[in-house]
């Protein structure tokens, strides 16, 4: 079938799976709702009630990796079509992408030497 037909089928599959999950919720709900009791809806923290919110800026330590990831991610978008036509393009393709990858790899090595590749 055509590509559009295939995507429509996948969309229907996604909707169907979500519907299946919701019907499982429905079956469980038919046994009765949850009983509201004090303390039950507080997040479980090992025996002490902690009602404080934790929605705040979270201090991740991997932002060095994240920046390099962005660079490589942009490159991978180009890799997919290149990979498909690689064999018919031959040596030229290898050299073109080789230069691109080498530049990125040098960037990775530079980041490594400057301490980007560690827990900040």
């Amino acid at each position, binding site marked *: 079938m055509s590509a559009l037909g295939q995507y429509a089928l996948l969309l229907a599959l996604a909707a169907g799976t979500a519907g299946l999950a919701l019907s499982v919720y429905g079956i469980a709900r038919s046994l009765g709702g949850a009983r509201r009791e004090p303390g039950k809806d507080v997040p479980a923290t*090992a*025996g002490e*009630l902690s009602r404080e919110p*934790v*929605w705040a800026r979270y201090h991740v330590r991997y932002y060095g990796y994240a920046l390099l990831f962005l660079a490589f991610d942009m490159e991978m978008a180009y890799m997919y079509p290149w990979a498909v036509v690689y064999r018919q393009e031959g040596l030229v393709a290898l050299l073109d992408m080789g230069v691109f990858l080498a530049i990125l790899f040098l960037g990775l090595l530079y980041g490594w030497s400057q301490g980007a590749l560690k827990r*900040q």
Partner: protein
Amino acid sequence: MISGARQGSPAGLRRLFAAAMARDLRAFVVPGAEVARARGLDVEAAGLGMTGVPRHASVLLVVGELPAALRRAAAVVYAQMMRPRAVLAAGAGDLSPLPGADVSVGLSQEELEEGVARLRTAFARGAFAPGAAGFEPEMLRARTEYACPMHPEVVQDEPGACPKCGMELVSREAADGGSGPHHGGDHGGANGDHGHGGHGHGGMGFMSMVEMTKDLPRSSDGLPMEWVEAPFGPLFPGLPGGLFLKLTLDGDTVAEASPSACGWASPGPLTGPADALAERLAGIDPLSPASYRVLALRAVEDAAGAGADERTARARAGALERERAASHLGWLSGFAYLIGHRWLARRAAELQLAVLRAEPAGMPGLRAAARSLARRIERTPLLARRLEGIGALPGGTGASGPVARAAGVRTDARCGEGAYRALGFEPVVREGGDALARLRVRLAEIEESLGLAAAAGSLDIPAPRTATGASGAGAATVETPRGTATLRVALSDGEVVSAELEGPSARHLALVGRVAEQRELADALVGVASLDLSPWETAR
């Protein structure tokens, strides 16, 4: 009917689900899996799966008597379990504020298995019941209070206006101490999104991010971020049960750690007739009862002026060493569970139960098993990398036991005892002072202890009644699995007049801050676990 049944009549589809739930019971063990193992109970073999997440558990398994603080924590966990839920008490006495036990058994494996069978039928019949009662103890109720977003210290019980700046007070739940994500200093918003006052409240005007964060404490990489306070105890699956640990998290780094222990009520067990002192002290710490029993016997004998003969001393040494091996294996199992090494957790638990049940003749076989386990652990890939440098403490911090011996300090109370010298004892000392060194010290001690227990030949604790009508003062020291414990008693006519007990964990508790702070959360927890704290040994 079980006390935590779901509302509804047990008919049709519900009976099917109840039967399924009866076959798939998961237990949350209070105070902790290590206490259950130390008492000789094999929970998984009894048919209960174990979990450390309250919401995934259907059974609250209470092992042994609990102090009031732990009972309250258990009640909180019980309230957070999903219905249908039940309480299985093994050797526990009064359980308030928890509801009464649905099934009550003694502290033995056969009784536990029989109790689980009874629990299964109770679940199959009573998981859904028309008249289930709610669990609403007073301690769980939430109060609403009203606070000013700009001045968090202004708190009232009714809505109104802030006396300092005139802003309307915002409602929030009464927190048990902290005030939401705070910066450890000035700005403390009730919710994180109130924290930065650049919205024009009360004429603040525009503030740049640099100005707003000027006074905040900075993290180790120079950025000022919100800190969140989260409890990691007392019933946390990876840490010893009874350790009340509150960590202030800066992302996934621990900014501050404040531990406290449940402990035993002083001077409770230390008063009373001297002959029963050993029994009372043995009840303090479920993780090492034999050590405290021997400590009490020796102290009383020293005060009464009677010495113990060589055979008694040898037998006591055998019992102490068996308990040391079992305690280290129990620690190893919990530690392996914390670092996610599942095979090791199960193998160490198996060996611990085998050691606890062994006869003197079985000791050499267990020693060989311990040796092969230690070799296998050394060959585990990535384990050394995982543990190297974690929880590093230099020597001379006042620690004792394996924590000190792992830092190269050659201190061991057993060096000065005749029975041990006769058995050819040498303390195990390693360099490094980090979690890896402590692991190696304990592995070597397991093997050595099993060898000493085999050489001693007897594993019980003879308790001759030397203290009837005796008077005097005396002291004794014992090397418990966690460190050196000292007891000083003064007797008068067979009664204990005054006594002082010092266990090793009090000093180790003070080291938790140094081990955990400024470390990533997983490393901090590994460091705390590597100290092998027993929260039961400290006096409240």
